[in-house]
């Protein structure tokens, strides 16, 4: 039985190459995602953020290189060890990726039942209720995924990711398609999880989410990491390419909320560069 390496980063990408089709996306990519912190991947559409997240969670294999999760190579694990290691991981999908033939309750219940086969019915019910409460979907437990809006499906996906009380959470654009109240609730949840020492790895285009919870920001452009650092370091970066990408990523949000760039410039001097 393989165990996570003590003190190892949450995820390490070592010389990772990946080609989704004939054109390579990542070529010899190196990146370390620290544990007990919130790392946000930002970048324009098609820059490879979601793919990087799926590579990090061991859902798709790299063409070459290594992806280490808490010091262990995903592809050096037996089926049994893989299943055990995944108890410590939650993944909330961009489109929800709910199992269409199961109810919302069953979607959240299955991972718990699988990893805790001896749990009695009450214990399973409690775990599902706790995860549903955290994601704010208690009212939808009896419904089928097809009856839910995309936003609700994403919340169910989040509840499914939370049901095992994971150490590491991979969140693919968790706040997209959510109303302001649900987004605020999620932000409070993420901040709470951060306080508990959990590792959050997020893909988002939302500057408010990034500004409020990111410990580290990784800015990407078509398969390359343009810059990484704290939020302040990245937004203060004078590189015109960085400014161009930040502007393009943030412009849509700025359309809806005129004070976003102000927010960035107030909190971080680099925000002025965006203007």
């Amino acid at each position, binding site marked *: 039985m393989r165990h996570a390496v003590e003190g190892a980063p949450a995820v390490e990408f070592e010389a990772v190459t990946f080609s989704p089709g004939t054109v390579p996306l990542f070529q010899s990519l190196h990146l370390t995602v620290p544990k007990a912190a919130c790392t946000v991947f930002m970048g324009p559409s098609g820059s490879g953020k979601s793919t990087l997240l*799926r590579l990090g*969670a*061991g*859902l*798709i294999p790299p063409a070459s290189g290594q992806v280490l999760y808490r010091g262990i190579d995903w592809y050096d694990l037996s*089926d049994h060890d*893989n*299943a*055990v*290691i*995944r*108890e410590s*991981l*939650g*993944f909330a*999908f961009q*489109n929800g*990726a*709910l*199992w*269409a033939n199961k109810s919302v309750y069953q979607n959240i219940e*299955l*991972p718990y*039942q*699988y*990893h805790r*086969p001896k749990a009695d019915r009450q214990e399973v019910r409690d775990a599902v209720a706790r995860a549903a409460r955290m994601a704010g979907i208690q009212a939808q437990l009896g419904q089928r995924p097809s009856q839910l809006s995309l936003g609700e499906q994403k919340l169910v*996906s989040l509840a*499914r*990711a939370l049901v*095992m009380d994971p150490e590491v959470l*991979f969140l693919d654009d968790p706040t997209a398609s959510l109303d302001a109240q649900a987004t605020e609730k999620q932000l409070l949840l993420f901040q709470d999880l951060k306080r508990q020492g959990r590792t959050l790895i997020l893909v988002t285009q939302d500057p408010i989410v990034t500004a409020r919870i990111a410990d580290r920001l990784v800015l990407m452009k078509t398969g390359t990491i343009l810059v990484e650092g704290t939020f302040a370091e990245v937004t203060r970066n004078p590189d015109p390419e960085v400014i161009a990408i930040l502007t393009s990523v943030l412009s849509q949000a700025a359309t809806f909320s005129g004070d976003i760039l102000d927010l960035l410039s107030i909190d971080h001097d680099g925000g002025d560069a965006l203007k």
Partner: protein
Amino acid sequence: MISVWGAAAIQAFKDTFYGFGFFWLIVRESLKLNTHRGVGWKVVVMQILFTGVNAMAIIVLIALSLGAVIIFEGAQVLGVIGQKDLLYVLLVTIITRELGPLLTAFIVMARSGVAIATELSNMVISQEIEAYMAVGINPISYLVVPRFLGVTVSVVALTVLFSAAGLAGAWFVVQFIQPIPAAEYFSNLLAHLTVKDILASLVKSLAFGMVIAVVSSYHGFQANQSSTEVPVLVIKAVTRGFGLLIIFDVFITLAYLL
């Protein structure tokens, strides 16, 4: 032209290689079904219900029709040349050993093979397979193994049903057109039905069940990103499935005859 053929041959070789690897993976996971945590048997039962129980009516209908036609036509034609006893050889050969298993497999491929390929490819596209992987559930053991076992058991059971309906049930149908005494019919039938015939039928149905489950699952998992891939993959699964069923049928028949 030669380069096109060469590329097609290399691709066919790769597909065969991956197909065998996929089959081995399914067999390996099937042997571990009892050790899997909290999953499996319920899906096996559901698959048997869909593939086996729900297909019984169509199987019985085809078997009765085929059996009745062979008895009716056979009795007429063979009677003219004074070889009425050959009727039973024909019945056993066609219903039990040759067309029975193959027709059953074709029907299961058209119903369940299509359903499995469609369902799995849609699950790949909607990232449901990745969702299973993310929570630590092996999609082969959770999704494919129950379908593999369910389809295989169902094809064997349906083939037995086909033989029973085609041999015994058809006699009842023919009574309305051309009565044959029951004692004469069934004693002659049993005299011509050998253990070797029954074994050949069972071996075929077992192989056919595995072929259907593996081919349809394999093509289901070939989906990538777009829902437009689904019909293409399903058509591929059906055509390759039918082709492989015929190839396996020929080999098993040759083994029987040698």
